[in-house]
Every structure is written in C-alpha cells, then in structure tokens.
C-alpha cells in the first residue's frame, strides 16, 4: 500500500532520486527519510509547503499520509 510523492518547481530537478512511491502510512520523519538529506534540508525551510491529498498542511510536521494519498512538495512560488 503506497503514498505518491510529487515534487514541484525547482524541487523536480533537485529530487531526481526521490522515489515516486513510498509505503503507507507516511509521517514527517518518514518523509524526511524517504527524500534524502538534501531535499530534507530544503523541506525544513518555512517557505516550502507540503500538500497531502490536495490540501496544503498548516503544520507540515503533522503529515499523516495514508494509502492512496499524494504528498506534494511545494517550493516558494514564482508565478504570473
């Protein structure tokens, strides 16, 4: 049973080795372990958000992804 991990924007380039799927359930520590130390460091930045199942987490350390959820790693936006 799996959780999908999606990297957005510049994180795509930096996280080529991050697995697309990891075992469910997935919490904050599990995520940091799954993405490797470089991406983990970036995730700790306040400007980097995490969405789970289509919702941005107010407190990303409270991540609790279940089977079938998609976890998106959202770096600072640069739109328009």
């Amino acid at each position, binding site marked *: 049973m799996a959780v999908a991990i999606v990297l957005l924007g510049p994180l795509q380039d930096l996280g080529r080795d991050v697995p697309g799927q990891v075992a469910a359930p997935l919490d904050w520590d599990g995520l940091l372990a799954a993405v490797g130390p470089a991406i983990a460091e970036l995730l700790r930045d306040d400007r980097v958000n995490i969405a789970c199942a*289509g919702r941005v987490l107010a407190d990303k350390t409270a991540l609790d992804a279940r089977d079938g959820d998609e976890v998106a790693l959202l770096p*600072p936006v640069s739109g*328009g």
Partner: protein
Amino acid sequence: MPDVRLLDGPFDPNTLIARFTASNPGLGGVCTFVGEVRSDGDVEALELSHYEPLTLPNMRELADRAMARFDLIDVLVVHRVGVMHPGEPIVCVSAAARHRRCAIDAVDFCMDHLKSAAWFWKREQRAHQWRWIEPRDEDYADLARWSE
C-alpha cells in the same frame, strides 16, 4: 459568476475581454490587466508549471474573495501554463464594477496574489539552458499591502 480558467495553450485576451465586457453591459467600468512574456534580452522561452489539485481551486477562491472584497459585478481570471514564447499572453484579469476604484483595485489585488500566492513555478530558457526563477522580494511586498 467568476470565470476562472487555467489554459495550456495560447489564448487571445482581446476575445476574452470583448466577451466579458459584452456580458456586463451598462455596468459602470471594466479594468483589465494582460501580462505577456517579456522580450527580455536573450529569453527564448518561459515555462510555467503548476500543481493541478491546488492551482485552479486556489484561483477560484481568489476570484470569490475579489468579488466580495471589491463589490464586483463580475471577474475573469485566466492564466496560462506550459511553455510560452516572448510576446505571448500569460495572464488576463478583468474586473467589472459599478465604481472604477473597485474595478482597478480588484485587478491589482488579483495580480499580486497570482504573482506570489498562487501555485505556479516559472523557469526561463536562455541560450538553450533552463533556469528556475526565484520569487522577488518586491512581489511579497506587493502582496503584504492586502493583508487585513
């Protein structure tokens, strides 16, 4: 009823604006902003990526907030994603209101949010090399003007 669209191909803002204006006759005023990919030195292309489950719902919420905050009759928010070239429109925001100040402020508000609080990531191609664009401090400052 806000008209909010995320488009992955080229669009003609004038067609959208003409339709938007025609659907709100005798309304007072319409303010519109159209942003294009700038011909900036050697920029060959620009790519905007987004996160499907968040981007469009977030834009719809922005349009609803603008409707309520600025007492709008209607609002149009259109944003391009994908690879674009200099001169191509990226964004078109149009607001119709009985009073001009509301229409102008609503466009300003929506643009500031699309720039720095919407789920878009931008990269530029120069000399065949893609480079991610960092958010500008100026954009955060623009956004902060609207906090209550």
